């Protein structure tokens, strides 16, 4: 898709020089013998020397950031208008990874759609499975065995840890910290090995099914998870020391890309983006689903809320901090489940060919990136009428249009990285 200047980013923020002003400036630069004062303010220093503050405004330039850029975390293009180092307009262009998930949802049977849910936010496939299964179960009204709920929560929280590890690891990478990325992937590798043991897949699990989970945990798996939790608690401090309190990291992220509380509400931000702006909101506690209500009553985990420790509340550092601290809270939830899990069945009585009762329901759950909602409509048949996917990355990315104008080009990477998008989910 060719981009002509007329389609390019609209002006935001800074007033632009008019064409006449630009022409005048250009003319002045080329005319020989023009006095220097033509270019900017002039003053005489105490030494008698003349100092001229040159106006170094350049002409506007349009830069395609992406689609193949590592900091877009997928295939996304941001068309930026820059004035020197200053971004004056930004327009995200999506759709490079559009795979018609919603259309597929109304073409295949209810159970067959489950593997497609893995592929929206491929870093948190367990959570996606859970969201879709819960939406269908809300229409079916089937009870879920308790052991299945336990395994669901364990897997969802382990996947949240894995997803946040990628989030902060690649965020460091985006802004120049190479090492934390490898540390993060070391633990994520272990997490993926755990998932491989329980369901055979490392990335697209389809483990959490409508009615429960696919199969029971193999012998020794829960002990492995306990060992993972112990080790992770030790290692977590490394990430915190290496990245969060690193002076370079703080300088790159504090006071950058500030999202106020009002703006977060207006743009419908959810998850760590919302908590990063100081809003005390987590669906797991406030509109509990699955076993989270019980876990909350036991006060087994907390919700980290940003306080603007390193700068203004709602900056990039706050969002990264929320993700980092949230990982430890997930470990606590996993521990609670390991203490309370008991033997039992793991899959309810669900027929192979599922007929879902007539109805429509919206179910939203707390994914690592925010609220993943499914709005499903059934006419009582084998195939859905509508499967609407409300991806958190999609809504969270919209705020970039507002944040980038006025930022420096280098900070643009920090801002886009801090939204922690997965393009599979923005495009679905």
């Amino acid at each position, binding site marked *: *898709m060719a981009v002509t200047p007329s389609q390019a980013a*609209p002006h935001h923020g800074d007033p632009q020089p008019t064409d006449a002003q630009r022409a005048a400036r250009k003319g002045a630069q080329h005319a020989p013998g023009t006095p220097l004062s033509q270019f900017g303010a002039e003053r005489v220093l105490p030494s008698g020397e003349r100092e001229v503050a040159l106006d170094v405004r350049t002409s506007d330039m349009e830069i395609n950031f992406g689609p193949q850029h590592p900091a877009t975390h997928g295939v996304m293009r941001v068309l930026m208008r820059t004035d020197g180092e200053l971004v004056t307009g930004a327009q995200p262009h*999506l*759709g490079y990874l*559009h795979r*018609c998930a*919603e*259309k597929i949802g109304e073409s295949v049977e209810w159970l067959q759609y489950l593997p497609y849910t893995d592929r929206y936010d491929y870093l948190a496939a367990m959570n996606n499975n859970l969201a879709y299964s819960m939406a269908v179960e*809300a*229409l079916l*009204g089937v009870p879920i065995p308790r052991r299945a709920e336990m395994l669901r929560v364990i897997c969802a929280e382990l996947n949240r840890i894995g997803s946040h590890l990628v989030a902060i690891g690649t965020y460091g990478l985006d802004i120049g910290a190479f090492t934390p990325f490898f540390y993060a992937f070391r633990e994520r590798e272990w997490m993926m090995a755990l998932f491989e043991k329980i369901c055979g897949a490392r990335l697209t699990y389809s483990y959490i099914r409508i009615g429960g989970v696919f199969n029971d945990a193999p012998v020794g798996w829960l002990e492995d998870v306990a060992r993972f939790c112990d080790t992770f608690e030790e290692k977590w401090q490394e990430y915190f020391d290496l990245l969060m309190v690193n002076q370079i990291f703080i300088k790159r992220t504090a006071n950058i890309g500030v999202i106020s509380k009002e703006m977060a*509400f*207006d*743009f*419908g931000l*959810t998850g760590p983006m919302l908590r990063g702006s100081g*809003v005390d*909101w987590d669906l797991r506690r*406030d*509109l509990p689903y699955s076993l989270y209500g019980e876990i909350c009553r036991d006060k087994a985990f907390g919700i980290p809320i940003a306080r603007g420790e390193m700068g203004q509340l709602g900056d990039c550092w706050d969002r990264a901090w929320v993700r980092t601290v949230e990982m430890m809270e997930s470990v606590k939830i996993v521990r609670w489940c390991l203490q309370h899990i008991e033997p039992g069945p793991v899959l309810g009585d669900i027929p192979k060919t599922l007929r879902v*009762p*007539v*109805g*429509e*329901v*919206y179910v*939203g759950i707390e994914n690592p990136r925010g*609220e993943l*909602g499914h*709005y499903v*409509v*059934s*006419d*009582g048949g084998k195939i859905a*009428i*509508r499967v*609407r996917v*409300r991806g958190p990355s*999609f*809504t969270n990315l*919209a705020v970039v249009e507002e944040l980038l104008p006025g930022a420096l080009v280098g900070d643009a990477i920090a801002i886009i990285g801090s939204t922690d998008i997965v393009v599979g989910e923005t*495009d*679905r």
Partner: protein
Amino acid sequence: MDFQGIHDRLRACNAPGLLGIDLPRGPDPKDKKDKGRAGDPFVLVEPSKLASFLTVCRDDERLSFEMLIDLSAVDPAKEDPNFWVVVSLLSVQRKHRLQIKCVLPKSQASLPSTVPVYRASQWHERECAEMFGIRFEGHPDPRNILLPDDWVGHPMRKDYEFPKEYHGISCE
């Protein structure tokens, strides 16, 4: 607040365009074909007044829906003369949700944009417009968002015919 409380409050503050409610119900014992309806309760709103309805939902102190979570549409069937536009609201302060449904004739699929009320709906409306061909009057940036600019047709409509080729690439 539960759904009944929200609905009473909406009645009390004369929310513009409020038409009624659609509650889940069990099957009708007299009618064997009727299977009832499962799922969420909805409030039905007149499409032309959706934006002003949302303004009340956002600004009323006891409703205080700060966030628009989702806006999408449904094409129920090929023969059905209507679209549904479905909006999901969330209140952080009051910890409640509301599902809103507008029934919109396919022959005149247009309604005022809700972007002035919630900026969150900007991208949702763009997606809805390209996928269903619903016009959102007064949208600040009515371009395609996921589809290419030259895409023909509205893919999420039930009567959509899949293209045979795209820019010389066979799709069959």
